[in-house]
């Protein structure tokens, strides 16, 4: 990464303190090319500057980060979003990821991890936190706590392969991609492609639990 140019990053957060903190943590590792504290300004500036990655606070006033995400993705689908939030409630996570974010990190994330997550997002890979991995396992598992397990409509999208489940479990246990690659005896790139495949399924699947989140949050 030292030889390549630094990824360009745009910050969207309504708290000035958080933006300042992010800038400080990221300085030297990424190129912060702008920041905004409200939805309309964010959309305009992002479309104008086309950053590699937008670090987006999910819980913003005026329709929140979701509005920014949708407006920008419509115009410039190549801009990638990494959602940032204090909450790790499953519905928030799923809502932003299904709306098109490449990943999700909580605000308690340490500086180096955030830099790594941004680099991974910029490279087009998915960023799964332990919690997101746990949720996906939960949502895709074929268990019936309450007997409401809908049959898989589209096996291609509604089911995870055994390898993908293995990778998700290791993420949920706290393994880095490198550790996972070592553990499973595969290349890091392969781990990344598994995670990206899971992200795609998460965004496109019509599984009951996922669509339920989505309809509750008025995303459909």
């Amino acid at each position, binding site marked *: 990464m030292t030889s390549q140019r630094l990824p360009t990053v745009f910050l969207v957060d309504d708290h000035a303190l958080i933006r300042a903190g992010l800038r400080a943590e990221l300085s030297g590792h990424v190129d912060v090319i702008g920041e905004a504290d409200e939805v309309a300004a964010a959309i305009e500036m992002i479309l104008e500057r086309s950053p590699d990655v937008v670090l987006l606070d999910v819980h913003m006033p005026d329709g929140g980060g979701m509005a920014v995400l949708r407006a920008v993705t419509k115009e410039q689908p190549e801009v990638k979003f990494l959602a940032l939030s204090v909450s790790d409630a499953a519905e928030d996570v799923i809502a932003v990821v299904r709306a098109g974010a490449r990943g999700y990190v909580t605000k308690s994330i340490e500086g180096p991890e955030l830099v790594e997550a941004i680099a991974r997002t910029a490279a087009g890979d998915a960023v799964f936190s332990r*919690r997101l991995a*746990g949720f996906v396992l939960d949502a895709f598992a074929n268990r019936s706590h309450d007997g409401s397990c809908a049959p898989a409509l589209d096996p291609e999208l509604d089911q995870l392969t055994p390898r993908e489940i293995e990778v998700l479990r290791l993420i949920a*246990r706290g393994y880095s991609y490198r550790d996972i690659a070592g553990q499973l005896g595969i290349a890091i790139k392969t781990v990344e492609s598994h995670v990206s495949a899971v992200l795609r399924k998460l965004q496109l699947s019509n599984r009951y639990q996922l669509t339920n989140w989505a309809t509750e949050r008025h995303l459909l």
Partner: protein
Amino acid sequence: MCSGLARRLGVRKRTVRIVTVLLALFFALGIAAYMTLWILQTRQGESASIFTKTFNDHRDKEILFAVSIAVLTLLITVGTIGVGPPGAFLWFLALSCLEAVMVWRGASEEERDHLREITSSISTTQAGRTVGWRAIALRTGLGIIFIIWGISLMSRVSGERDAAAYVLVGASALVLGLFALFAPWWIRSVQDLSMERRARVRAQDRADMAAHVHDSVMQTLSLIQRSANDSNEVTRLARQQERDLRSWLANPEMFGTQSPTPRTLSQSILDVESEIEDNYDVSVEAVTVGDAPIDDAILALVAACREAALNAAKWSGVRDIAIFVEVESKQISLFVRDQGSGFDPATIAPDRQGIAGSIVDRMRRHGGTAVITSSPGAGTEVELRLPRTSS
């Protein structure tokens, strides 16, 4: 209205008014006549009278029809009870009822406002109101008249046949009179009561909120100020407060009333998480997939998990501990992982209680297994597995 009639008849306004009131008192004829005039007369500045308006409106006609039926039924009922054929008084009263309905439906917005003002002023007793005294006088007068009328009717009871009817009518008049006199006061006090109750609930809510913010946030802030030099302590306090607020926001009713014994596996894992975070300067993040109700074996699993996390908090030297629990149909897997200093399991004396007794043996007693993977410098992972017998 009276002024219009006065103009037409060429009499003084006041005379017409007094005559109307007197007629109304004795025969109800006055009321009916007044209403009829109100309906038929075209109001100043308007094109049609209420009567024509009503008959041009389909809905109004329907309403009028319905009300007429109701009034007729009432009259016939009264007749059969024993008053004999309804007297002139009742007929006129009924007619005026119908006309009142017509007036209400057909009145212009302006008139309606005026009527509303009158009705609402009748139901207020506040002495300070400027419109008040006329309404009070009117109401008091009406009330007294009804009461006297009622009493006189009841005292006239002598004949056998009409007794019941007179008592009935008299009692009704009495009730009407009392109602006219005291209803506003009564309604107002009921309104005041409910308003007061609502205000009290709101104040209670605010007090609860203030108490909570004081107990938790304020206390924590003052603790943070006192230990400002100890960054670890500040982090711990902030984390504790964050968890506290989060659970309060998520479920304010349940807050503070948490049952001492958690009902499910995921709840007890959360308890382990907060206990270790509170007592050691570490952050524990538990991810659970699926859930299961508590039984003896699961209690043992949770206890082993707690022991493993405690070891990680004490010895790993890092501040992040990851717990992952997955409940499947045949088994429960639980992982406690840190990326700290690690150790060589072979060097741990077999009689050390921590790992052997609290983790490995405990799991074995319940048919489960415990595997500890660790090497110096590469962190530690404790892997617990518990087969599920039921389901």
